[in-house]
């Protein structure tokens, strides 16, 4: 049990996908202007990421490995991820049209979110079992959502402050992201052994 908890914490904080592995940076910069939309994006990505981790593990161990089709790995994973994203898009459009409008192009772009494919591939690379894969996917997604929320909160406050002209907009955003990344590096001292 402790092992799983450690895995979850480790993926969410210590090995955070965005700030430590630098995956999924486009939505991180793109949909972080408002906390509300960031939360929506985070939840959508969580759904996709967890489901993709599950589906890719199943495919890997029941289709690709028995048939010795390792070279098709990226192709099949992308296929599965695209299908899940399509489904998510339909669901969001049905449930919350306003959120659908707010997320705009970033919703279908979850397909190409490197975090999603990255997590699926890392699962294979690190020889995770099924439960571990699920936790790894979910943990990464929680980490992604957490960071997106923190960053959008920071950017909301940033919008109120006097930023020198040369730094206004994206530049100060990147600087803040860098500082946030430094802060997350501190979590590497959380789990020792």
């Amino acid at each position, binding site marked *: 049990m402790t092992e799983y908890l450690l895995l979850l914490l480790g993926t969410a904080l210590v090995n955070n996908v965005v700030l430590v592995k630098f995956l999924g940076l486009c939505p991180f910069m793109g949909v972080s202007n408002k906390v509300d939309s960031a939360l929506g994006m985070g939840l959508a990505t969580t759904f996709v990421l967890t489901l993709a981790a599950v589906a890719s593990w199943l495919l890997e161990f029941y289709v690709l490995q028995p048939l010795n089709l390792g070279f098709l790995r990226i192709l099949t994973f992308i296929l599965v991820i695209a299908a899940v994203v399509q489904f998510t898009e339909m669901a969001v459009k049905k449930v919350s049209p306003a959120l659908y409008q707010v997320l705009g192009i970033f919703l279908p772009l979850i397909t190409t979110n490197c975090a999603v494919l990255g997590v699926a591939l890392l699962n294979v690379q690190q020889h995770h079992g099924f439960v571990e894969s699920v936790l790894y996917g979910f943990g990464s997604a929680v980490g992604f959502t957490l960071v997106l929320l923190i960053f959008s909160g920071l950017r909301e406050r940033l919008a*109120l402050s006097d930023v020198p002209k040369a730094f206004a907009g994206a530049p100060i955003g990147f600087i803040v992201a860098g500082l946030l990344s430094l802060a997350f590096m501190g979590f590497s001292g959380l789990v020792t052994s």
Partner: protein
Amino acid sequence: MKLFKIRGGVHPDDRKKLSANKAIEPMPMPKLLRIPLQQHIGAPAEPVVRKGDKVLKGQLLADSKSVISAAVHAPTSGQIMAIGNYMAPHPSGLPIRTITLKPDHDDRWIELPAEVDPFTLTLDEIVKRVADAGIVGMGGATFPSAVKLGLRKRYELHTLVLNGAECEPYLTCDDRLMREQADDILDGIRIMMHALQVEQALIAIENNKPEALAAMREASSGFNKIKVINVPTRYPMGSEKHLVQTLTGKETPARALTADIGIVVHNVATAHAVHDAVRFGRPLISRVVTVSGGAIQQPRNLHVLIGTPVQDLLDYCGGFLEQPSHILSGGPMMGHPIPDTKVPVIKGFNGVIALTAKETAIRPPMPCIRCANCVTACPCGLVPLEMAARARNGDLQGAVDLGLMDCIACGSCAYVCPAHVPLVQYFNYAKGELTLRQRAEHKQAETKRLAEQRAVRIEHQKKAKREAMMRRRQEAARKKAAAQTTETEV
């Protein structure tokens, strides 16, 4: 009596010495009086006289036509020269409905009712007399006093608080009034206590006015229900919610009235006006105004008729020592700039303050350094720097969420700000803008309603037209059929 602490506040140099020792003097009669029809919060009064009418001192010029409004009376006898628009004594300088009166210098009173003992009148009669006299809160808020005296019907009241704090620097009009006419004020207080049916009255006076304190103590010595209380000198002690908290330890709920906790607050000058109105039937036609500030030759306390041009007051005080950078109505903390010295004195003017550039010490604003001095100073427990940042970036709703509507615009935050950020100015802007938007929203809802009504009406008309057409067609068909039958018969 035990006093309670309030949050925040500032200690500006009170500069009351300039005029505190000058007795109240009457002003000579001005050449023209301009009396605005709205000198109070609420609906403007409706004129009941016409151009050319001769009026007597104290005669009703304009009557209040709605619940929250106040009547306006002639400050002296004379002739109505015009009823039109004139520059308002308001920072915008926009026109306001104004009656122009030319004094005939007889200063003849209209026939006043005989002096009555107020304690033989019914409570409603007292309130009516106050309303008929056009009395408004004379501390500057100008809320119709009769409405406040009628609160007994809706709230359970136990205490009347008399606000003699006069916490604004420079102003000494209430101080002088308490020193010179303590007995009249006390009579007014007793009348108000009677009208409100409260158990006790507390007269709160800041401890920088020892003479006023002594005078009021002496006047109230015979009445054990009336207590004079020495409150610490600290701005904004005169804010009614903060005064109540200092005296009773009870905090008025956000956006509620002090009446919700059983307390009504009136200004001491209002008590004086109530004494005049209820006992002698004299309407509110004059008030005491402090003329002070570093730019004034001879600072004074003047007894001024409502409608006197501010310029007359300045001239009477010897004009300017040097060109002032600001001329304000009210005190330097919450007072408003006067658009021009030709504007008249109105019921809510407690002072005309001409400040030199050195006194105002206005400096260009610099970026906020988040020192939180404003947070410490805010008497309402708000976070001015955050509210101002939101107001500046157009996030008015964000400012409201942080408590903008609980801000009393006392200006303590802007006073202490080391970066000279115009904090209270942002709040005043944001509040005004929000009111405007609310009005726009209201108008939009109204538009929607009108459009829907019109759609229904047009649909109705169309239907009626169709039905009429159908009826005509049927009629024609029937006639035709009848004609055919007759034809065949023939």
